[in-house]
């Protein structure tokens, strides 16, 4: 074992100790605060370095031309001009750009695993569709860590991914946040320190499923909304019973995994990511959140959020949007490419999201398209604000905005060195660091991650 390795282990141990006392002081966690599938992620040994002379976008609106970033022990130590080198590897980044790692809050990697086969069409792991209420499911229990989508995302600068269940059920289950690193199971990829996410869906997807012969579930928008309210009412009762029993004032109800998850939404421990397109659907869902006293983290797809920015702003709900997915379904007719700049202008927390292993590789390009469309209607958002849409705003949704998504001292060093402007189609991720360790180096692609699936298949690699 090298000295470097020992130092790293010591550091991890320190980090664990420092997390310990806080947890110990709290009373035993409520059932909806518990994680039956704990992370086994360990940051690799750090690659300390000083990136010199780059154009830096810090992720929260700041830009430094000809700036430096010092990375040590897995953290960002300093960001500024003419930083002194304390004796670490120096990387000439002149002409190149540095940003926080890209965060994709809407992925189905590991469950929508390419290549698809007839087996996937028969029974997909994207959604549990036996019931409109799959609140008890944890998508991580389906994730295939060998999905090469993780490798493609990483080599394009993505450092954090939220894997959501699909939008067929109304209550679709818990999400998982991962780092796109090679590992035998999802739990060696699972990021810590975020808020537990949850997926819900409104509109065409759940109602169309319900309307199909032999399927359970509502068949109309009004049916979907009423179904949601009834589940929240049931969960309110369940949550009260559990809390009273904990306080010694009544019997503990039989454990119900669905109600438990929804109780977590009501308590604020579980954060809703709501798939929703039309303005009316979004407004209706925000009313439900108000009625039951919780905050929806983000509306996903949010095709018509640009028509009602005030409602999202007042609710403190973000919008996770595409640049240019539109038209393919009825509720996506009114999509506009300029939605992100319009929402930004209106003061709504907005971010790009992918829903696709292809588009997830180019979230900054999605931002570039959105910004170009904004200019067509007189809204001009500069790069230092555009970068929020792929870094600090998604970090906020995941509850990780004190850890990732920003280049500032103390943050985890999830950092990308781009060959040029990250909003240019010609720019490539030259170096991708996760927790201050090189996870992708374009100058040595042979050392890059290759999933077990790809290994040794005749057609795959030269």
């Amino acid at each position: 074992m090298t000295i470097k390795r020992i130092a790293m282990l010591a550091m991890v141990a320190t980090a664990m100790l420092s997390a310990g006392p806080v947890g110990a002081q709290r009373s035993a966690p409520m059932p909806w605060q518990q994680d039956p599938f704990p992370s086994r992620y360990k940051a690799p040994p750090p690659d300390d370095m000083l990136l010199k002379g780059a154009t830096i976008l810090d992720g929260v609106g700041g830009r430094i031309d000809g700036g430096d970033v010092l990375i040590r022990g897995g953290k960002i130590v300093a960001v500024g001009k003419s930083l002194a080198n304390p004796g670490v590897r120096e990387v000439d980044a002149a002409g190149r750009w540095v940003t926080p790692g890209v965060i994709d809050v809407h992925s189905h990697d590991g469950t929508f695993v390419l290549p698809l086969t007839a087996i996937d069409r028969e029974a997909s792991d994207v959604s549990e569709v036996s019931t409109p209420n799959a609140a008890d499911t944890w998508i991580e229990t389906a994730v295939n860590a060998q999905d090469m989508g993780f490798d493609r995302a990483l080599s394009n600068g993505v450092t954090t991914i939220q894997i959501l269940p699909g939008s067929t059920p109304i209550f679709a289950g818990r999400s998982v946040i991962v780092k796109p690193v090679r590992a035998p199971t999802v739990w060696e990829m699972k990021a810590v320190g975020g808020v537990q996410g949850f997926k819900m869906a409104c509109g065409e997807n759940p109602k169309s499923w319900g309307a199909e012969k032999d399927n359970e579930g509502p068949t109309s928008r009004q049916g979907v909304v009423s179904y949601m309210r009834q589940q929240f009412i049931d969960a309110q009762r369940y949550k009260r019973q559990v809390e009273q029993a904990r306080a010694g004032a009544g019997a503990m109800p039989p454990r119900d995994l669905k109600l438990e998850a929804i109780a977590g939404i009501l308590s604020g421990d579980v954060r809703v990511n709501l798939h929703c397109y039309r303005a009316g659907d979004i407004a209706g869902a925000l009313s439900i959140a108000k009625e039951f006293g919780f905050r929806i983290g983000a509306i996903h797809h949010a095709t018509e959020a640009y028509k009602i920015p005030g409602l999202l702003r007042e609710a403190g709900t973000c919008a996770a949007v595409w640049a240019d997915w539109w038209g393919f379904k009825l509720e996506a007719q009114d999509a506009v490419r300029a939605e992100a700049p319009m929402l930004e202008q209106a003061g709504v927390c907005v971010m790009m999201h992918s829903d696709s292993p292809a588009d997830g590789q180019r979230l900054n390009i999605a931002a570039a398209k959105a910004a170009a469309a904004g200019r067509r209607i007189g809204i001009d958002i500069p790069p230092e604000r555009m970068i929020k849409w792929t870094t600090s705003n998604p970090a906020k949704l995941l509850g990780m905005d004190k850890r990732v998504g920003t280049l500032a001292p103390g943050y985890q060093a999830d950092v990308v060195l781009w060959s040029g402007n990250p909003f240019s189609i010609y720019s490539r991720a030259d170096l991708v660091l996760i927790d201050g360790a090189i996870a992708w180096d374009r100058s040595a692609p042979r050392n890059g991650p290759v999933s077990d699936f790809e290994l040794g298949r005749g057609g795959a690699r030269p």
Partner: protein
Amino acid sequence: MRMFASLIALAIASPAAAETIAVTHAEAWTMEGDQPVRDATILIEGGKIVSVTAAGDVPAGARVIDARGKPVTPGFVNAATQIGLVEVAGSPDTSDTSSADERNPGYDVSRALNGNSTLVSLARADGITRALIYPAPSRHAPFNGEAAFARLRDGVDILDTANVGVYTVIGGGAWDRLGSRAVQWTALRKALEEARRANAAPPVAEDGKGKKDRRGGPQGGPPGGGRGAGEDPIRGVIAGDIPLAIQTQRESDIRQAAALANDFGIHVIVVGGTEAWRAADVLAAAKVAVILDPQVNLPFNFDQLGARQDNAALLAKAGVRVAVGQAGGPIHANYNAGMGLREGAGIAVANGLPYVEALRAVTVNPLAIWGRGGGTLVVGADADLVVWDGDPLEPSTNAVSVIVEGRETGIRSRQDQLAERYKDAR
């Protein structure tokens, strides 16, 4: 009153049709050489390019479009898309992409083209002036039907040329109809053999139309008449009049496609061609062109395990003519037939395709591959061109003027109108 209004509309419309346009201060990519003409004046008259001259004079009376030193290119051409056939993909009753007719699967997409589609106006706003429209799989695999070229002029009539090629699919899309691709290739070869025999037979005197008869088309008799999809047009393939497009992805199939081109001496196009880079030399030797999506670096199915974003660069280097089509996968290929194409060409450049080759892959090459000419700004060419506010392969660039057949077209899409309506919403 209504008549008065339409007279005014006519008065406004007519001069536009006849007017002389001068695009000035252009970085004009004529596609003749590998470099643009700087500070060019491009003169357009009667729907044609009249001259492209550095610092050229502007004739009196010409309407001037100042390009402000920005790129001006031939109108981009999507080598494979289905705009004009699709509206709401999730609702099949708004889609005309495929034939469901068991008796007469012959399917000519040109009869379904809808220039009023919102997909068409957005593609035009993104700088597309022509597009190859292809049919989806039919019930008579491996034949899909007959492809057509659309020209994205204003209005409902966007047909440029019908029956520009026979479109087939081998592998995904044909599997559920015929089973093994061995059977698919056999079916295709059998149809080609029959067409070759029919072409070789002494011509039956029929209205004295000569060669036209061999290309098929309306031959009398009841509609359908029992012919199979592509059955008559495939005689045109054998005669060398039109290409045979084979949508296929796997290396083994791509080599089969090249062998087919050699065995029958016909013009074959591979569409998709995910693993074409592995057979680049064979394709070059058989003069088989490839229409591909440069974004693909993940296999959608097992036929695409060799997906690489430098596919275009490797093929071009080996001497294979490439064009961009079906760019961006199932949604973007149709809904963003312009932006997806440009993004794809940009990705090809980022992965080693020389810039000017990428421009050719979205202008000259798609037309040449489908047996058409044009896609340039040379004197005498059709005046289809786009004035950009930056590098057209950058998704952050907007088209500021799109000229089709010498007329400046509307580039305010429905999306622009919605965005303008709500831009001050707070």
